[in-house]
């Protein structure tokens, strides 16, 4: 009954999305105020019914209603309650509903928080978001209904949730990631509305910026959570595999990062307009392409959803309409737009253009690396694989100039910067970076020219430069203490995000260089030494979990005779899905992780264990978290929350 109500709610949401797509948009062209005013209640209604649908689905999972195919295939009565809730978006159908809910949620947020916008623009943006959601709700209803029942015959027990997804990271990762993906729809809608009206300038950029930042914030967090989950759950200590699914989230992230930088130029200087609009379109288009790649089955990936060509075809047609349509509009309207600004070669504008060049090139590399095997095969040239060696090589060469530029850029003024005054601070920063990097290497007793040193140098360069720059700005207010409260929140945000990038670079380079990995054969009582740590296997015993069995191993770790920690690694056998999962034991410190996974049983009452010591691996996620916090700080900037007294009286009658 509740399930049918959910289905009904989704149908209502569809109807409201259709109305939202038609009325305000039509109203904006015929200058019909009542129609434009309808946009807000329609957006709220749409969100309300999507929420009802999601709650109904969660209810079906919580009550073990196995007559619903989705529940029977992705849950079981033995599943812990929190995973029963997350199982509701663990499948293709459920995650599509989550997607729809997120889109409706963003639409409602725009309706609520963009009251200051001219009514016409407001109506158009909501109408475009409604139009996009029409496509997704229809997809959910027609092609992948999460509420479908298998009456009259249904199983008495479900097939359980894929054990890979039974992890804490999976509770947070999908909603955060989808918030990011879908969030770029708002910037997209702003861009389309601007293309329709033909106006974009600093004001437009000011309005889009917080939305782009918010989407970027969630996407960054979502990707980091996904990486952290893979590290903990896949059992081999990797944090990024360049799988198509990961790349599908990385591409919009790169385009989105370029967008938030380009928006800064458009807001502050009124230039880069056509470029910024293109990036706003691209970020969401890449989200859609990613969704297509994951759900259509055109690429082979470790964690794609079960696929069916009908769905792929629907999504491709949808992609053609949305992305093709918007790019067509872009082509038609854009040549009327002229940017206006004057700036010198050595100026903030050119620095940010450099940032965009590198990010877009990175995006193209990921795009080609993901899709080239498909092109290669469809051209009849045979099958190839593109993975880690290719991407690592390309990102190595790209990161070096990018990080150098990033250390430089925040110091450079808009319009024009004299080179001479910067020479002294940058010499000092360069010397400080060199000393810091060598100092860290010396403390690890490994001073040599390797990737680790390069990472430390670049990280120190970016980090020290960002800190020194913020100190310089603070001093410009008279004194540092006086400046602290005067400097914009968005400036702190930028600095924090740049430091986050520095931390990330250090983490990646150090982990890649100094990870020590050993596969050892151990009996109870055996010990082995890896990178100075002494691991002793004290016990192996049988496990008995709610929906799994298996073995657990207990290890003691000591260093130089002193006790470090106790580790508990599991190898689980999930009974219903009949799959083996490794629950690695991780002991995390800022300077290193100890990572142990329990392997197979070996003859002679022994076990294979994979023991890894991974220096600085935490820094990778720490960097991501800092970047997200930076975006959060920038969002808190008060200039985005300024209320306008005149806004309320506005009537659009174009």
């Amino acid at each position: 009954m509740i399930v049918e109500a959910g289905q009904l709610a989704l149908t209502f949401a569809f109807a409201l999305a259709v109305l939202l797509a038609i009325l305000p948009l039509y109203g904006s062209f015929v200058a019909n105020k009542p129609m434009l005013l309808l946009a807000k209640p329609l957006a709220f209604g749409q969100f309300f019914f999507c929420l009802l649908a999601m709650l109904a689905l969660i209810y079906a999972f919580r009550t073990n209603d196995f007559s619903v195919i989705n529940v029977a295939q992705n849950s079981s009565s033995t599943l812990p309650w929190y995973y029963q809730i997350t199982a509701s978006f663990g499948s293709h159908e459920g995650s599509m509903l989550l997607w729809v809910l997120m889109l409706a949620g963003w639409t409602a947020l725009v309706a609520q928080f963009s009251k200051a916008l001219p009514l016409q623009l407001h109506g158009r943006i909501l109408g475009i978001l409604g139009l996009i959601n029409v496509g997704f709700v229809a997809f959910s209803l027609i092609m992948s209904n999460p509420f479908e029942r298998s009456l009259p015959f249904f199983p008495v027990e479900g097939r359980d949730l894929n054990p890979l997804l039974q992890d804490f990271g999976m509770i947070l990762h999908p909603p955060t990631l989808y918030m990011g993906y879908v969030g770029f729809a708002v910037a997209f809608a702003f861009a389309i509305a601007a293309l329709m009206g033909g106006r974009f300038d600093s004001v437009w950029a000011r309005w889009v910026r917080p939305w782009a930042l918010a989407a970027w914030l969630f996407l960054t967090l979502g990707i980091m959570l996904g990486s952290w989950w893979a590290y903990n759950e896949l059992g081999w200590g990797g944090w990024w595999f360049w799988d198509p699914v990961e790349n599908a989230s990385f591409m919009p992230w790169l385009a989105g990062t370029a967008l938030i930088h380009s928006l800064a130029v458009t807001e502050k200087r009124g230039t880069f307009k056509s470029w910024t609009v293109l990036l706003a379109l691209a970020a969401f288009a890449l989200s859609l392409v990613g969704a297509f790649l994951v759900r259509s089955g055109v690429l082979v990936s470790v964690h794609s959803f079960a696929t069916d060509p009908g769905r792929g075809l629907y999504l491709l047609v949808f992609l053609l309409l949305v992305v093709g349509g918007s790019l067509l509009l872009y082509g038609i309207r854009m040549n009327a737009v002229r940017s206006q600004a004057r700036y010198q070669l050595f100026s903030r504008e050119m620095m940010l253009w450099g940032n965009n060049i590198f990010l877009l090139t990175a995006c193209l590399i990921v795009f080609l690396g993901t899709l080239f095997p498909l092109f290669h095969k469809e051209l009849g040239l045979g099958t190839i694989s593109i993975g880690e060696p290719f991407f690592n090589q390309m990102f190595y060469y790209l990161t070096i100039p990018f990080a150098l530029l990033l250390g430089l850029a925040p110091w450079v003024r808009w319009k024009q910067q004299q080179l001479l005054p910067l020479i002294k601070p940058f010499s000092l920063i360069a010397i400080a970076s060199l000393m810091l990097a060598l100092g860290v290497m010396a403390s690890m007793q490994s001073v040599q020219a390797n990737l680790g040193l390069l990472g430390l140098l670049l990280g120190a360069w970016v980090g020290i430069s960002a800190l020194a720059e913020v100190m310089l700005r603070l001093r410009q207010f008279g004194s540092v203490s006086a400046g602290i409260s005067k400097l914009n929140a968005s400036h702190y945000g930028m600095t924090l995000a740049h430091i986050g990038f520095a931390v990330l670079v250090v983490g990646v380079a150090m982990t890649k260089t100094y990870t020590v990995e050993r596969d050892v054969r151990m009996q109870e009582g055996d010990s082995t030494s890896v990178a100075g740590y002494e691991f002793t296997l004290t016990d192996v015993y049988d496990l008995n979990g709610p929906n799994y069995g298996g073995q657990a191993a207990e290890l003691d770790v000591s260093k130089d005779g002193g006790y470090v920690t106790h580790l508990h690694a599991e190898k689980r056998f999930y009974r219903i899905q009949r799959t083996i999962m490794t629950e690695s034991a991780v002991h995390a410190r800022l300077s290193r992780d100890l990572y142990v996974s329990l392997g197979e049983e070996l003859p002679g009452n022994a076990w294979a264990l994979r023991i890894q010591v991974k220096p600085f691996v935490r820094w990778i996620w720490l960097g991501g978290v800092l970047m997200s916090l930076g975006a959060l700080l920038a969002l808190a900037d008060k200039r985005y929350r300024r209320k306008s007294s005149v806004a309320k009286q506005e009537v659009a009658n174009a």
Partner: protein
Amino acid sequence: MKRYVIGLLWLMCNTVSAEEVLAFANDAQRELYYQLAAELRCPQCQNQNIADSNAIVAVDMRQKTYQLVQQGQSRQQILQYMINRYGDFVHYQPPLNRVTIWLWLAPLLLLLGLLAVGLYRRRNEAAQTPDNLAGTPDELEQLIEKYRSKKP
């Protein structure tokens, strides 16, 4: 707790050093083996390297790689051995040919192209337009206010 105490007792009186599952003559060979296992793709799995997969063919390929490493074959020889059997598909680094060259060329061209666009635009705009923009944040605020109150 009891388990822990027993563990400690074990530790004190019976510490035996564990051996590696796969023994290597030297660090270079160990590194080569792990590197290859990470770069070779399991032909049967969804998208996994042979190090992380437990499919039969991945186990066999790991074993073969180990054998070849122990025989002292070079990285290139071992890769070629696998490619001869399973095709270019098996290596995560694509081969270089007249089509795949674009994997490297296209990003390079984009980079240079965008750089050129930036320089060209800067010169053109500098020549054409007067600088009548909001130079300070305050001026931008005024501009925004003007925009808002304007009837389109």
